[in-house]
């Protein structure tokens, strides 16, 4: 399987630059997810890799070849589209076989390959049906069948699950993951759904406004976001971000927000910075409802409890600022009703610069 390498890739539409010189290395057999809000350039980047959009500048390599000027069909990539792109006049078997027929593959070979792919995807009994007679999930599987039947070097997925309902999406997500494990094809997957990104990716690429904000494994992004954007984008619910003033000197740094005080980790980056404006980032999962060693208590006003089953989301305000915490229910939310305080361990807090939004170095002061 091939490596995909993007070096200083730029995309312009006329005078407007929409992708600003991005660099990315996708390792062979790796599953990389491009994630970001609408208009961040993730689909454009994927389409440039597929050859459906011209690359304005930079070098795109698939394997060892620079493919900037190579036709899509010669890049040995297969793409799964958001709306499946199934031919309505062809049945499932013909749809899966389309790419092979175009390439004039012998009929016997086509029949064998289609049968094999249909078996993998559980489509054998639907081979004679037209796309209109299939459910959303089945159509999605046919679209994937069309992609895998050619045994490409690289799979490209352009938001393939966004037209499915929530339950089916979860199911198909697992199927894609299983399929990747089984086939081991280098895959690049575009989505705006961070849950999809977290569950599928070996590495996630977070994009914003045509730039790559951060590349890393799901847990790296979850635990160590490089800026407030990534912190707010990855995680559900997202990281709480509260603007505060740094107080307490070097020995006991703390964040002061509207009268509420939270102890901060003793970071090297916070030394000699009293009075500095910072953003305190706390994951809802890192907040405790019971006191723990070294945790600072924070008074809250509980607005709403959203019960999720084993967990509950506590929508609170801290000195008037919205703050979300996640708590285990242990079968009941009754014990959460009168909650007046939450506890935060300093080592689980991420501190960002209020002006740049960049995370402050996590190195502890000696």
């Amino acid at each position, binding site marked *: 399987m091939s490596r995909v390498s993007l070096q200083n890739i730029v995309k312009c539409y006329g005078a407007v630059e929409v992708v600003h010189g991005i660099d990315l290395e996708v390792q062979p057999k790796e599953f990389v997810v491009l994630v970001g809000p609408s208009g961040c350039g993730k689909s454009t980047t994927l389409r440039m890799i597929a*050859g459906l959009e011209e690359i304005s500048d930079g070098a795109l390599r698939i394997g060892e070849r620079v493919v900037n000027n190579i036709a899509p069909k010669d890049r040995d990539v297969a793409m799964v589209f958001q709306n499946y792109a199934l031919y309505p006049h062809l049945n499932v078997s013909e749809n899966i076989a389309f790419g092979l027929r*175009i390439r004039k593959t012998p009929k016997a070979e086509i029949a064998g390959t289609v049968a094999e792919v249909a078996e993998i995807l559980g489509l054998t009994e639907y081979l004679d049906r037209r796309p209109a007679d299939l459910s959303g999930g089945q159509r999605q599987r046919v679209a994937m069948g069309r992609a895998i039947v050619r045994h490409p070097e690289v799979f490209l997925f352009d938001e393939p699950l966004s037209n499915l309902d929530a339950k089916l999406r979860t199911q198909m997500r697992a199927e894609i993951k299983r399929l990747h494990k089984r086939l081991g094809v280098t895959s690049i997957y575009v989505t705006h759904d961070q849950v999809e990104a977290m569950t599928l990716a070996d590495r996630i690429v977070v994009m914003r406004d045509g730039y790559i904000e951060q590349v890393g494994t799901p847990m790296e992004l979850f635990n160590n976001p490089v800026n407030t954007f990534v912190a707010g984008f990855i995680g559900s619910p997202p990281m709480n971000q509260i603007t505060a003033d740094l107080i307490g000197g070097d020995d006991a740094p703390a964040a002061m927000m509207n009268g509420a005080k939270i102890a901060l980790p003793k970071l090297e980056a916070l030394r000699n910075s009293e009075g500095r404006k910072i953003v305190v980032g706390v994951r809802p999962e890192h907040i405790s409802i019971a006191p723990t060693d070294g945790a600072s208590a924070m008074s809250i006003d509980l607005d709403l409890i959203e019960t999720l089953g084993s967990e509950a989301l506590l929508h609170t305000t801290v000195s008037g600022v919205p703050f979300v915490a996640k708590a285990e229910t242990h079968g009941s939310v009754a014990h959460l009703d009168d909650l007046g305080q939450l506890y935060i361990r300093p080592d689980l807090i991420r501190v960002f610069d209020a002006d740049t939004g960049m995370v402050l170095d996590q190195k502890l002061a000696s």
Partner: protein
Amino acid sequence: MTDVNKTGVVVQPLASKTAGQLTRWERLLIILKRDWQLYLLLAPTIIWLLVFLYKPMYGLQIAFKDYSIFRGIVGSPWVGFEHFETLFNNDQFIRAIRNTIAISFISLCVGFPVPILLAIMFNEIVNQVFKRTAQTIVYLPHFISSVIIAGIVIAAFSPSSGIVNTFIKALGFDPVYFLTRPEWFRPIFIGTSIWQEAGFSSIVFLAAIAGVNPSLYESAVVDGASRWQMIWKITIPSILPTIIIMLIIRIGNMLEVSFEMIILLYQPATYEKADVINTFIYRQGIQGGQYDVAAAAGLFNAVVAFVLVITANSIARRYSKTSLW
């Protein structure tokens, strides 16, 4: 109490009756009251249909009467199928039927695919300026009166000063009297019809092509399809329902050969190949004053057209699952 009909629309029943007890007229009244604005918009078309297409049907009975304008439709005596017998014993009418079928059939075979080809070609043009210019040029003849089109054709094929004969003469041949030679009538007529209407007719197909999901093409590009393969395997199959609908409509109008264009281009010398049912009706009815015989010929024309469109629709429905109704 309310009732939800098949379309999911809630029908409010009259005072004390449940929806199940309402008569058809009461239900109609309720629907008319509820959606009166929509029916008001429909009214002009219905009035037009009644006045210009249904009311004249009353006059069709003269095809079975010995009609006299002095006695009127009601006063004229019934003669049964006498006029039809007269028509089918008339060589000119048989010739008109033969010509109508020949011209219609050739027009259908030659003329029907042209707008489809034009639409596909327009769709393939990348340069927008060239595309729009080409479209304007081919749409233009549709907006020109048939009289002017016929004038242009007559001038172009004129033996003395026409561009075609000027060219023939320049090549050292004798000029050809195209418009007086029966064997040239059909090619000139069909060619003129295509020139006049093909461009405009292509709009329907162009709209159908515009409705094809662009990701089908993108997917085919990634799969390695060439432009030709995309036309054959995506564009044409995708617009096939539109092609079938247009074909049914065209078959329904098959006998309605462009009457005014034939009147403008034909002359007694070319009647042999040019005289169609409609021109025969015109000469018999309007010029010859035989309204009853002309009505019989017109009725025959309409019945055949009706049978044709029903048959075409049934065939289309059976084999392609696409039909007008």
